[in-house]
């Protein structure tokens, strides 16, 4: 997030797009509700499903899944043509405006309407509310990024923020919500194929030299490695032989499970290190039992860049061990001594090599409770808002974006759009929450949400088991007939291994970020005895 969670409360307008905030990021949801209830913030929710936040919204926009760019371009067209843009900000802090303007001029609201299904007056209203607010914040999550044009979506949001001068000030900013507790930290720590910790490029020879010296190795590899989706492809081609997975369960979280399973089976050797024998671990050649968050010391970095402590409360069960111990043991057996791997000393090593973490230490965390990066020195208080004076790369660049349709659009054969997501009481692949008795009792099984009109046409009732089939696979799941999804769209949470939503989703990738299109796939529902002819996938 560019801004902080507290800061959201100060926003005069918040646009929530592609985020079911109250269920997937409940505390951010509280901040947004508070802004609305206490500070008269105008909330615009752009989301096909009727999510809880809609109750607090000034305006709810129901765009078709995968058409965000058209909607946003339409809004920006209105802002430009009605003279609502922040010209001073554009002049002083940005570049590339003229070119951007040319593209935006081609998206009058009427054209946007044809694509996204939102009426022109609604687009105008949202544009005016957003642009005329003294400060307007944008909040988004996976509903924006998990598309074959996810990067386009993100750029459009950045354009909207710059166009209205909503960058680097209180109550504004572009705020992606990180889905999992430490996604931010894993990125910061260089668990990405192209960067070392602190986003230092592996292609940069100076960066490499620094890490070579610190790690005592002669040569670090200089070409960027494979992303997750590329790894699975490489594995099916036999180019990746060994895969070592720590604490992830891609068989549930990744698209097109069949393809993934094929890749896992194609591996010569699969190591999975986890706390449970997950659906993915079941494919492993070696499973290493790890400690849970309550059984170790460390830090997580949350969605607004706060580094906070994780503390050991109980002992790991049986012979399970901390991940750091396991990693160091593997390294040792390959002839590399990782030295002191206690959490505080590893943080010291991180701080020494990662400029944005340079001022972070366990001593300071003990004292302050949290520190937000960038925190470049031991006396730096941390940074609640990014880009106050200028952008990381100097001037903010407008990049014009044209609308591109999702990789898969509904047709006669697969007439419904499937979108996936989370529910309040479960988390990610369900390996933790589904093992919590009380949460399981409250939300025991998967459901496909179907609009009453579609349900009527298909002759299905709430509670009935149906087959949902895409070009890739079919799953069996109970139907929940609800107005909360619009006609033509069905929703399935992805936490449930016995009816894995991601068996159906599309592996089409965003060309830049390599994020799969989990939020739009074409499917059909098969009810009645016909469904039994399908072969159902279970993870």
């Amino acid at each position, binding site marked *: 997030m560019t801004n902080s969670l507290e800061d959201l409360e100060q926003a005069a307008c918040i646009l929530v797009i592609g985020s079911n905030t109250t269920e*997937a990021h409940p505390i951010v949801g509280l901040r947004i509700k508070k802004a609305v209830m206490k500070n008269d913030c105008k909330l615009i929710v752009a989301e096909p499903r009727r999510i809880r936040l809609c109750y607090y919204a000034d305006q709810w926009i129901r765009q078709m899944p995968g058409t965000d760019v058209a909607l946003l371009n339409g809004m920006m067209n209105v802002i430009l043509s009605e003279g609502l843009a922040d010209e001073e900000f554009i002049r002083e802090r940005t570049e590339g405006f003229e070119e951007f303007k040319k593209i935006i001029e081609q998206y009058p609201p009427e054209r946007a309407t044809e694509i996204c299904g939102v009426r022109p007056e609604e687009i105008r209203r949202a544009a005016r509310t957003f642009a005329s607010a003294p400060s307007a914040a944008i909040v988004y999550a996976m509903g924006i990024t*998990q598309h074959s044009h996810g990067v386009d979506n993100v750029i459009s949001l950045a354009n909207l923020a710059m166009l209205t001068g909503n960058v680097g000030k209180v109550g504004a900013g572009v705020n992606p919500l990180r889905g999992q507790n*430490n996604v931010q930290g894993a990125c910061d720590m260089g668990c990405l194929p192209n960067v070392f910790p602190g986003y230092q490029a592996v292609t940069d020879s100076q960066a490499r030299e620094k890490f070579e010296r610190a790690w005592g190795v002669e040569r670090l590899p200089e070409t960027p490695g494979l992303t997750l989706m590329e790894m699975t492809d490489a594995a099916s081609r036999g180019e*990746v032989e060994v895969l070592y997975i720590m*604490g992830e369960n891609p068989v549930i979280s*990744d698209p097109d499970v069949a393809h993934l399973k094929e890749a896992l089976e194609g591996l010569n050797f699969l190591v999975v290190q986890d706390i449970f024998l997950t659906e993915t671990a079941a494919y492993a*050649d070696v499973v290493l039992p790890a400690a849970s968050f309550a059984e170790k010391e460390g830090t997580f970095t949350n969605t607004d860049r706060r580094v906070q*402590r994780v503390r050991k409360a109980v002992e790991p069960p049986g012979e399970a061990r901390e991940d*750091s111990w396991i990693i160091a043991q593997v390294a040792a057996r390959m002839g*590399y001594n990782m030295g002191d791997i206690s959490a505080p000393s590893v943080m010291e090593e991180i701080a020494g090599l990662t400029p944005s973490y340079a001022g972070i230490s366990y001593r300071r965390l003990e004292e302050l409770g949290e520190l937000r990066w960038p925190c470049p020195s031991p006396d730096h208080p941390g940074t609640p808002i990014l880009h106050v004076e200028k952008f990381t790369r100097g001037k903010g660049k407008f990049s014009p974006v044209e609308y591109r349709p999702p990789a898969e659009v509904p047709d006669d054969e697969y007439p419904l759009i499937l979108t996936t997501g989370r529910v309040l009481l479960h988390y990610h692949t369900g390996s933790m929450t589904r093992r919590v008795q009380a949460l399981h009792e409250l939300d025991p099984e998967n459901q496909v949400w179907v609009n009453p009109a579609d349900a009527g046409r298909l002759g299905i009732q709430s509670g009935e088991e149906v087959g949902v089939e895409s070009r890739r696979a079919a799953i069996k799941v109970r139907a929940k007939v609800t107005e909360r999804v619009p006609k033509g769209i069905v929703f399935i949470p992805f936490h449930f291994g016995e009816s894995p939503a991601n068996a159906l989703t599309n592996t089409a990738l965003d060309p830049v970020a390599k994020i799969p299109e989990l939020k739009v796939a074409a499917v059909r529902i098969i009810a009645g005895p016909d469904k039994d002819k399908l072969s159902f996938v279970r993870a």
Partner: protein
Amino acid sequence: MKHISLTIDGIEVITTPGRTILEAAAEAGIRIPTLCYDPRLEPYGSCRVCLVEVEGQGRGFLPACATPADEDMVVRTDTEKLRGIRRTIIELLLSDHPNDCMTCESAGNCELQDLAYEYGVRKPRFQGEQHHHEAIVDNPIIERDYNKCVLCGRCVRICREVQGVGVYDFANRGFEAVPGTPYNRPLTETPCEFCGQCVSTCPTGAIVSIPSKGKGRSWQVRKVRTTCAYCGCGCQIDLHVRDGRIVDVSSPLMVGPGEGNHCAKGRYGYGFVHHSDRLTTPLVRKEGELVPATWEEALGLVADRISKAVKEQGPDSVAFLASARCTNEENYLFQKLARAVVGTNNVDHCARL
């Protein structure tokens, strides 16, 4: 004006404008007892426990939680008169309270019990009618026992003001008043989100968590402050540990991103830690089956197979998938293993998912 100064119990207190007397006193280390107060909520001033004397103010008694501190105010928080008023309030509350601290889930963590203790109220002076409600257990997480309700309205207010949901409202009047759900519906049939905010604010044992019942009093547990392991909000939670097991989770107030508020996952999602499905030994595949192995064997095998692949096919035939669930330190070491030990940049994680 940047600062105001006032006198509380003879001490000069400097505070910022907008603070209440209660907050100003707290800053100066003076504790004023409260019952309907929670820093997460708007001041309410209903229980009268925090009454203080302010010189020159008519009858002179003002609720400290709802009265702004003012320049040159002279406040007394602990006079005989005030103690008398507080004692009477406590006696009235206890006259309709079941007095079953012996088995009450909240004993040791109960603001009413603490007040009775501090003011030495043993037997209520007033003998009157008592409520005999049945405890309501209509869901697996939250139990309500209105016999213990002190009508502070904290549950009603937190659900409305903080959670924005508004499950409870005062139903019935006078003696029969309780913070009920609409038409007494079970919580599962209301928009309740099972966040447990109402549990966390209830000053007595009227609203308690079911999963932790009977598992440990507040003085029997060790509290370990940590970061929630679920979503990216990063709430700070206190794990309650007894006999080596996590028995409850509570919320430190005004700390971390949640400031004492959580969702059901953070507050009630700890059970997986001690689940019998946890992996307890390394497993190695032999003849198609995963079977228990020693660390020695498992680690040796992993190192050998990686080394073999590196030797035969080059380092890029090995790939690493790090974890958005693991700590920074672990992820750091993991990519170091990939880059420095194996020699590949094939390291990624599930950020995109």
